[in-house]
């Protein structure tokens, strides 16, 4: 649910990172925070426990250039993996304009990815979204690790819809795939807003 303010002339898009615990959602957002032009980024809020588990959510606001005179702002959220409060999940999923599913490419996490994807589908429908309609992209993260599943196999299991998908290494200094993933979902959101307006 995009937020359009004609008075302050801004559009706010809410994008949610979803995925199994420890797949790299927080790392994606932290990379974006460090690699974004300081003028464009707001403060990163990371509500983590001492053990670096996301307790509630991570939040990063970004400002993109104006589009048709309206400032475009992105609000990036991650959902917590372990202590998965229904309250924070609800807050985060509610009003989402786009979803990024981050998969953990490691063989040992194959099942965990499937469970998280089922969970996402269930959540989306609970909040009235259709996974085939909401702007949605998939990221296969941790491609640097030795025991990773082939992308083809991950794709078959996690992306039967053929939405845009990207390989990524969120921990690398240049974060391959991280911005591509975000850009893709933003494009889909704006294209959908445009299609709806026509």
């Amino acid at each position, binding site marked *: 649910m995009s937020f359009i*303010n004609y008075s302050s002339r801004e559009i706010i898009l809410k994008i949610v990172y979803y995925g199994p615990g420890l797949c790299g959602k927080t790392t994606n957002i932290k990379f974006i925070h460090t690699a974004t032009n300081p003028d464009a980024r707001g403060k990163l809020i990371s509500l983590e426990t001492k053990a670096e588990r996301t307790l509630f959510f991570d939040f990063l606001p970004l400002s993109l250039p104006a*589009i048709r005179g309206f400032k475009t702002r992105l609000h990036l959220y991650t959902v917590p993996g372990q202590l998965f409060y229904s309250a924070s999940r609800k807050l985060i999923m509610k009003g989402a304009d786009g979803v990024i599913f981050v998969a953990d490419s490691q063989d040992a996490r194959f099942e965990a990815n499937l469970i998280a994807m089922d969970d996402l589908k269930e959540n989306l429908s609970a909040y009235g979204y259709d996974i085939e309609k909401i702007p949605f992209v998939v990221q296969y993260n941790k491609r640097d690790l030795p025991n990773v599943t082939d992308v083809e196999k991950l794709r078959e299991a996690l992306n039967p819809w053929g939405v845009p998908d990207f390989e990524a290494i969120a921990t690398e200094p240049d974060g391959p795939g991280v911005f591509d993933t975000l850009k893709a979902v933003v494009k889909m959101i704006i294209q959908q807003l445009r299609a709806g307006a026509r």
Partner: protein
Amino acid sequence: MNPRTVIFEEEQRRLQEVCTRLTRDSLARAIFLIDKNGQILVAVGETANIDTTSLASLVAGTTAATSSLAKLVGEEEFPVHFHEGKRDNLHISLVGEDHILTVIFDERSSLGLVRLRVKKATEKLVEIFVALAERQGLGEEADLFSEITDEDIENLFSDTF
């Protein structure tokens, strides 16, 4: 798809007016009107040293958690929650189904005064949101998006990353 939230200048001005008056009447330091998704609609008073974007997202988060707490103990909702500090206090209350009013106040005011004034202001805010809801879906906002080109979309990322 979910409906989108659109705020027009007239309603923005009216919301702002109610909040400004509330700041004065309740002797508050600052007042924020936020939606449950964590977007800020109005910030008035001494807001200069506060990161309002962070505040909005955290207030929405704590309100969602409080609402779950209510259900956990068998209440339908806790429409008001309050955080007491050494100097500043935070009074957070629901406005209708979708919005949250946050009042920051110090020793110049009191919980009783804030509670009383918030109650009155809330009725007015609800009225404005009802008017806004009626206005939405009339398609006034359609033009903005229909004019967006592929180039506009591409340019969005040029200076950012």
